[in-house]
């Protein structure tokens, strides 16, 4: 079976600084993959590359077997890749329902069908009561949930999530977790960037750890969190690696 996403030697630098350097990894259909790493290790850049928000300097990004490197985000959405943002980017003056309809604007099909689907999705995260509430009046956590279900409107094969648990109340976190698990059971794959590693380890079947733009460890949550390279990455370089101090 083809992987949902498969990258090879993906590289991206900004003004001389290499943010992602030759990373290769893959996400199998229907899995939840966590992406961790210290600050500045290239996680968000990777996410931006994987949905076409930025184009890689080199390397391939295969979505369902087709190389989309260099294509626009529209192509990625079409191929079944959607995403959420670290700070939720909902359209604040339009209602929750209207937010959900944005991704399917260019999709054929009756509006009634989409409205029904949107209602069902809002229901899954307990936002149906806010169907007609402008998104600006939702709390930060609710905006994250809204953004999450918005990403599901196009029935993606994979959802890329940037820090879904950061800065939200534990109860919202729980709703988010359950919604992800539920959706995953239906076959949708996830790739989740998070600093909240304990939350990730409960959710993911596999975790990828990046450091300095490269994948340094990959495996089950248990394997990765006890991997010496990972611990070293989070520890930083000790005095020992810097030689004698003056």
């Amino acid at each position, binding site marked *: 079976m083809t992987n949902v996403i498969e990258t090879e030697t993906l590289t991206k630098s900004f003004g001389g600084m290499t943010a992602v350097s030759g990373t290769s990894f893959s996400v199998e259909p229907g899995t939840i993959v966590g992406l961790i790493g*210290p600050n500045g290790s290239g996680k968000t850049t990777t996410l931006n590359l994987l949905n076409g928000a930025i184009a890689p300097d080199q390397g391939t990004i295969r979505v369902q077997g087709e190389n989309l490197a260099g294509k626009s985000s529209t192509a990625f959405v079409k191929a079944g890749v959607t995403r959420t943002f670290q700070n939720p980017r909902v359209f604040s003056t339009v209602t929750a329902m209207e937010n959900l309809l944005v991704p399917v604007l260019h999709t054929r099909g009756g509006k009634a069908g989409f409205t029904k689907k949107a209602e069902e999705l809002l229901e899954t995260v307990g936002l149906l009561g806010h169907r007609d509430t402008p998104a600006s009046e939702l*709390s*930060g956590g609710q905006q994250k949930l809204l953004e999450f279900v918005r990403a599901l409107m196009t029935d993606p094969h994979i959802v890329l999530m940037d820090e879904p648990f950061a800065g939200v109340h534990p109860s919202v976190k729980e709703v988010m977790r359950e919604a992800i698990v539920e959706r995953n059971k239906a076959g949708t794959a996830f790739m989740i960037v998070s600093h909240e590693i304990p939350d990730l*380890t409960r959710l993911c079947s596999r975790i990828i750890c990046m450091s*300095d733009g490269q994948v340094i460890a990959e495996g089950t949550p248990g394997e990765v969190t006890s991997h010496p390279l990972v611990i070293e990455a989070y*520890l*930083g370089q000790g005095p020992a690696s810097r*030689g004698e*101090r003056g």
Partner: protein
Amino acid sequence: MNTEATAVSVTAPELALNDITAGYFANDIVLESVSMTVRPGNVTVVLGPNGSGKSTSLRVMSGFLRPRTGTVTLDGQDISTTSPADRLRLGIATLPQGRSVFPDLSVDENLRLGAWQLRNDKGRLNDAVDAMLERYPKLKPLRTRLAGSLSGGQARLLEFARTLILEPSVLLIDEPSVGLAPVLVDDVYNELERLKDEGRTILLVDQNVQAAIGLADQVYTLAYGKNHLQGARDSFEGQLDDLIKQWLNL
């Protein structure tokens, strides 16, 4: 303000966060009842998993984020509502995270802007610039280069120089090694060590746990926006692996 070129720590003030609650968004609290003290002449290190509120604490100290409740004090005096510029005048200087040079200004101009508060005293301003070029001789040949064309290491040096040019009494340093190649991280830590040896008062936030602990006199750790552990360096060394494992599996 310190006028001596070599900072003398004994006269440095004590900067403290007292029971601070703060956050960026309406519904989100990043810091909850956080307290910490930056003692004169000490290197105080703040550690914690990503997102635990380390950088936010620093922003509250530098004045770029107003606390919702709690106070920031400098030698007991409440400076919670003092603007960043005025805090700079009080001797609290910040070295922010990431690249902060003005890319389209020359190295020289970047340095001079660091000494903006001396703008009406050209003599002192020039002396301060010369002193920094003396301190960082590597910058000398680069004076006319645009800061945006510097390498990562050179830019960091420039940022150090620009932060030190007013001889601040307290230095707030945010994640100085993020995004730097390993060789350059060494340079940064060598520089931090020099600052420590000069007896400067420093608050250091870094994810490079081992290196930061190596410098620390006093350590605070945060978890989920709250104070977690605190103590002298000795009480932390040796348990670092456990600490990290704890963060990863909390």
